[in-house]
């Protein structure tokens, strides 16, 4: 065990830090609209031009061709420097690209990996369906073969960033007779194909991060199938695996920084009687709790990636980081909102309210999106601990 970096790692880290110091945008990311998309696009392109896009992606498709360790170090540095997150490129960089690297045809890799890294393609996910929710194996959206095309009908829901995306990953049922996991296929779809309609969904914080996407006789070339027809479940699981992958440490470090912000909030505010909030033992204990859990989460994530790097396999800790992160992050945001007291009753009443209240409200998505906490507990119980199915 060691935390200190070796020479190679130290050099990489130094180069990364130097570049980030010069290149991280100095103005805030616009919260919505085309300005937000343009901001994310510019930041992705800047990374590409600097040689930092796709650190561990194959160099033949525009990546830097380095190891997983460097990829992790890069995300870590980005978090330390408060560099912008992937934003609208989250699915493209975190799911679609890595899936294509493992499962895509040469043509698919060639067509998409470069554009993704250059910030030219925004991707959306299309797994959940109305009525299916956490139970992906029960998907009903149909794709029927017709010549060299698949004709798709049905709808997907909880699709992130659908309204600004160019491409979508789609899990559809190509063999209606096969049971549950079998008979699904994984497609990639251009969202400007005729017959596709996107209807945004407003969430409880008033934002529209999700959409329902309707497919009416949409023709998708067979060449857009990733993997083989009927292998969709396996391909989709590859993608889901990546969600718990290399981005983990960066995500955790950003949460640690948010915990620092909450501590600052408590240190700089007074309660109704004029006493510093941090002088309240209950507040201090709550801050100490989230600080300690934050460090524990960081340690768990570090242990997980260490194991991946050392053994080449994603061990059981991988399925534990996500629910721990989701629940801690929800509690941190809630504590931030709680500390605001009545100031938090107007979302735009102060800078602190604008920072903490909407993100607290949105945090309910953390324990539901990418598999509910309940499903993640089932996975740990059955696949990691070997408990029987219910």
């Amino acid at each position, binding site marked *: 065990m060691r935390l200190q970096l070796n020479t190679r790692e130290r050099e990489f880290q130094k180069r990364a830090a130097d570049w980030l110091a010069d290149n991280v945008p100095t103005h805030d990311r616009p919260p919505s609209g085309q300005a937000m998309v343009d901001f994310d696009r510019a930041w992705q392109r800047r990374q590409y031009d600097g040689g930092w896009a796709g650190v561990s992606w194959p160099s033949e498709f525009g990546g830097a061709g380095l190891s997983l360790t460097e990829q992790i170090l890069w995300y870590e540095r980005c978090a330390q420097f408060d560099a912008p997150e992937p934003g609208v490129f989250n699915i493209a960089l975190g799911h679609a690209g890595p899936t294509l690297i493992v499962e895509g045809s040469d043509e698919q890799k060639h067509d998409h990996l470069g554009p993704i890294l250059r910030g030219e393609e925004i991707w959306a996910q299309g797994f959940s369906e109305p009525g299916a*929710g956490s*139970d992906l194996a029960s998907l009903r959206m149909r794709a029927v073969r017709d010549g060299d095309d698949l004709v798709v009908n049905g709808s997907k*829901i909880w699709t992130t960033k659908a309204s600004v995306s160019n491409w979508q990953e789609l899990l559809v049922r190509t063999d209606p007779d096969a049971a549950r996991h079998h008979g699904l296929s994984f497609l990639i779809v251009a969202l400007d194909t005729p017959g596709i309609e996107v209807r945004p969904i407003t969430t409880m914080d008033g934002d529209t991060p999700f959409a329902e996407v309707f497919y009416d006789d949409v023709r998708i070339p067979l060449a857009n199938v990733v993997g083989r027809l009927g292998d969709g479940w396996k391909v989709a699981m590859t993608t889901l695996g990546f969600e718990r992958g290399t981005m983990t440490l960066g995500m955790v470090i950003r949460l640690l920084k948010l915990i620092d912000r909450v501590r600052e909030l408590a240190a700089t505010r007074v309660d*109704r009687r004029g006493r510093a909030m941090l002088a309240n033992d209950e507040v201090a204990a709550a801050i100490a709790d989230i600080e300690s859990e934050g460090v524990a989460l960081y340690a768990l994530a570090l242990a997980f990636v260490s194991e991946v790097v050392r053994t080449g396999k994603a061990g059981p800790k991988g399925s534990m980081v996500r629910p721990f992160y989701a629940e801690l992050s929800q509690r941190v945001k809630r504590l931030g909102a709680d500390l605001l007291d*009545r100031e938090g009753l107007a979302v735009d009443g102060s800078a602190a309210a604008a920072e903490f209240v909407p993100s607290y409200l949105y945090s309910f998505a953390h324990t*539901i999106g990418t598999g509910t906490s*309940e499903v993640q*507990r089932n996975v740990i119980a059955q696949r990691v601990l070997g408990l029987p199915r219910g």
Partner: protein
Amino acid sequence: MDLYPSEEQRELAAAVRDVLAGAAPPDGATVRGDAWSAAADQGWFALGLAEADGGLGGTLADEAQVFAQIGAAAAAGPFLATNLAARVATTVGDRALAEGLVSGALRAAHAFGPHDGADRVTVFDARGAAVLLLVDEQRSRLRLVRLADRDIVDDLSPMDPAVTVARVSLDRAEVLAEITGAGAGAVLVRASVLVAAVLSGVATAATSMSVEYAKIREQFGRPIGAFQAISHRCAEMAIRSNAAAAVVDLAAVSVDEEHPDARRRVAAARRFTESSALENARVNIQNHGAIGFTWEHGAHRLLKRARFLGLGFQPRDAQTEVLVGAG
């Protein structure tokens, strides 16, 4: 010794539910005019006032049944502030003002905190209100001042869509009535009970919403209510909401009967209903999965109501003071 609601109380609750069924517009913090009139006609603002004062001579326990239903509907509308304002006006003997409030002709906004010298105050439900109830719990003072839309300096975005939030200028505010000391203390105790009643309604509505959904929503080939992750949470929600309803009744009757433990029971009811409403509202969203955090679904309204109400009359530190000092 009987905490079982009377037939009159059960009928009253049903009547309130009927009025509220048409009262809550899906988006917007303003109650529909006809529902507001129906509420006033049904006596929601006169119920707890003595008959000699033009009221209906009901008990605080009766009022609590009304406000529990308001909570269960997550209803928008300044019902509580108007009820309290009518009581303040009655206490100082301003029959005309009291009559205006009781009849529903005048609506009351409210704001918290010491307001001396402050010329900008954050006011809830200011739009459309004719009077503003200024609440200073620490110094036990309640003051009614005149309010008009032109006093609004800024409209803010409310966390809770069931209220409006505005910054209001108190520069030339005309004081209509003021009570302090024990008189104000008595009204504030009633306010705590009624807030607790609203919160208990929120807790109950969250339980019903989850139970109904758990029966019909299927995942993995079964209704989700067949999974212990959901069914045990529903059982816990039911315990909390039944206890919340009971503790509100206990507190209200204790105030009505001037029981020696009344103040402590009120603080207990206020605290228990707050934590129950927050917890049930939170769990209810989780039970619904993704649909639960959409704007269209009602689940988030319950959470936001619970948070708004929890920060209102007799907030957590004031509860602690009463409960820990007791003995």
